[in-house]
């Protein structure tokens, strides 16, 4: 991986500060989903957002592209292109979505409109943002299908989604995301719904595209094994907060937060060499509306002690690495 690029402090193209997302409840209250997340995304970088289901990864992603449900309440800042995206009126979003920030969703079986041909669905995003002649449009669609590795593109672009396999449909979704050369692609669990072999192919494709085209990517996954194959940096989320972040290899080699260690232990793949036998983290994902005081991970943590009743801050324990754990802070001081 390109270790050089990520160590030179390139300016951030996207800067998220104290992002908070809550969903309005029927009783008038708010159910928190994201609780003060901050990170920077740099040019050409793949940042992985990792955590168990329900920890707020998708809510974070959707906030960055302005597609949260209408019941969502958002706070904080998202700086992109000199503007705070969280305050963007809907009309201005239209020139950012698909053009400068694109998104790939989890389930390729349901993310294409069944009533339109593949070619027309790709054409839609190109027509929306670029002023291409019909010939240039057709050429670009074909080029994109080749780029994402779809064999026989001339046939495929005339077909409907149900005539393609899941892996091919995800390639089409990726082609749509790439269509207008966006600066950022957000991929929300792009391989979770796919078979293991297809999963590997799609990861390779995304990784290769990142190296060739150089767009930055926020790659969301619940699987650290998948993340290790593509990400430069990881940010681990738990109960709506970041609990650990840092360069990918280093976090995976020496996780600083017990939650990250737990996630690693539950990775099935070889190569990662989990120290303990394969196991899930004990206990349940907490309800964010009724969190215990102190560290949110406390009731599932084997190393919890008295100090954990005070909420730990997200602290830099080693240059470039941060963790939200009293232990990490102690260890680095020794």
């Amino acid at each position, binding site marked *: 991986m390109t270790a050089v690029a990520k160590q030179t402090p390139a300016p951030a193209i996207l800067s998220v500060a104290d992002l908070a997302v809550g969903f309005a409840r029927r009783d008038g209250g708010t159910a928190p989903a994201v609780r003060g997340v901050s990170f920077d995304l740099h040019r050409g970088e793949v940042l992985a957002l990792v955590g168990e289901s329900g920890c707020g990864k998708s809510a974070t992603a959707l906030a960055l*592209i302005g*597609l949260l449900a209408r019941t969502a309440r958002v706070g904080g800042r998202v700086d992109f292109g000199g503007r705070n995206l969280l305050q963007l009126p*809907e009309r201005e*979003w*239209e*020139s*950012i*979505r*698909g*053009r400068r920030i*694109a*998104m790939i*969703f989890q*389930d390729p079986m*349901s*993310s*294409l*409109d*069944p*009533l*339109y041909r593949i070619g027309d669905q790709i054409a*839609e*995003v190109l027509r*929306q*943002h670029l002023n291409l002649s019909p010939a240039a449009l057709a050429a670009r669609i074909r080029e994109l299908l080749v780029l994402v590795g779809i064999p026989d593109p001339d046939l495929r672009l005339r077909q*409907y989604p*149900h005539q393609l396999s899941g892996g091919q449909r995800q390639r089409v*979704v990726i082609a*749509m995301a790439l269509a207008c050369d966006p600066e950022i692609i957000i991929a929300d669990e792009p391989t979770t719904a796919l078979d293991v072999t297809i999963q590997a192919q799609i990861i390779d494709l995304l990784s290769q595209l990142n190296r060739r085209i150089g767009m930055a990517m926020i790659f969301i996954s619940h699987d650290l094994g998948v993340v290790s194959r593509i990400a430069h940096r990881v940010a681990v989320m738990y109960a709506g907060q970041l609990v650990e972040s840092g360069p990918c290899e280093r976090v995976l080699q020496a996780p600083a937060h017990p939650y990250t260690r737990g996630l690693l232990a539950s990775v099935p793949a070889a190569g990662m060499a989990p120290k303990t036998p394969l196991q899930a983290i004990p206990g349940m994902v907490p309800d964010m509306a009724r969190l215990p005081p102190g560290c949110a991970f406390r009731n599932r943590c084997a190393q919890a002690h008295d100090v954990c009743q005070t909420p730990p801050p997200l602290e830099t324990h080693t240059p470039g690495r941060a963790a939200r754990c009293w232990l990490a802070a102690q260890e680095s001081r020794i």
Partner: protein
Amino acid sequence: MNYYIRRIIVALLTVLVSSSLVFFAIRILPGDPVLMRLGESAATPEVVAQMAARLGMDVPVPVQYLHWLGGLVQFDFGNSIATGRPVAEELVKRLPRSLELMAGGILVSLCIGIPLGVVAARRPDSLIGHTASVVALVGLSAPTFVKGLILIILFSITLGWLPSSGYTPFLQDPAANLRAMILPSLTLGLGFAGVVQRVTRASLAETLNRDYVRTVRAKGVSERRAVYRHALPNAMIPVISVVGMRIGSMLGGMVVIESLFNWPGLSSYLIEACYARDYPAIQASLFIIFLVFSFISLTMDVLMGVINPRRRDV
């Protein structure tokens, strides 16, 4: 076997079975067409027997049934007991009038039901959304007769804008024909608009939350385009299938409307035939009505295949 060929065969069988049921049912019901025609007091046994022979009713019912079936395959429905003229002649005249009315009714129900459904689905918690649903509910639940009377009183008697009855052939005077169509079509369509509104609302509320609509929004297209080019066409699939299935419920409305607006269509012919126990006329008009409804629901099926590519492969 091809899906549509199978579908057509099933439809034809259904029409045949229901028409046959009608054939036997009307003969079980009280009332003898021969006696009704002659007048009970004047009828001597010889006259009755003579009349029955002329009407082909002197043979056992199963034989009558075979005669009827034999005529059916040649589109010969026999002669009316009441007038003595061929039933087919009358049907050819009246069927287009009823079809015109039905087309008007469907048009009205789609033009009212779909927009109200869209409004209610897009703004489920707003005043306008609730209003749309309430309006549709009133249209759905008020009796056809009451809706018709209200429209007549309002537009015909009070405002004097539209005729309350009568029929002018389209070829004779298109404008008069269409003017006379408006009130009956509205009355017929309003009830069905309620059905269309409810299905559209439920179906669109669902497709608006589908992943592919989110994908479309992520492309940066306008919300309008996401709704009208993607969510709504997908939402129309169940609407079409419900319209196809529930179209038969329009029949009841047709009967009321043709008599309320003095519309000389098939339903009013059927009513007259029932009063006269005019067996051939009853059988023939119901046969045609069954055929028309089967044909409409078949058309809806084909239409589904046209908008839904997944259906083309079955």
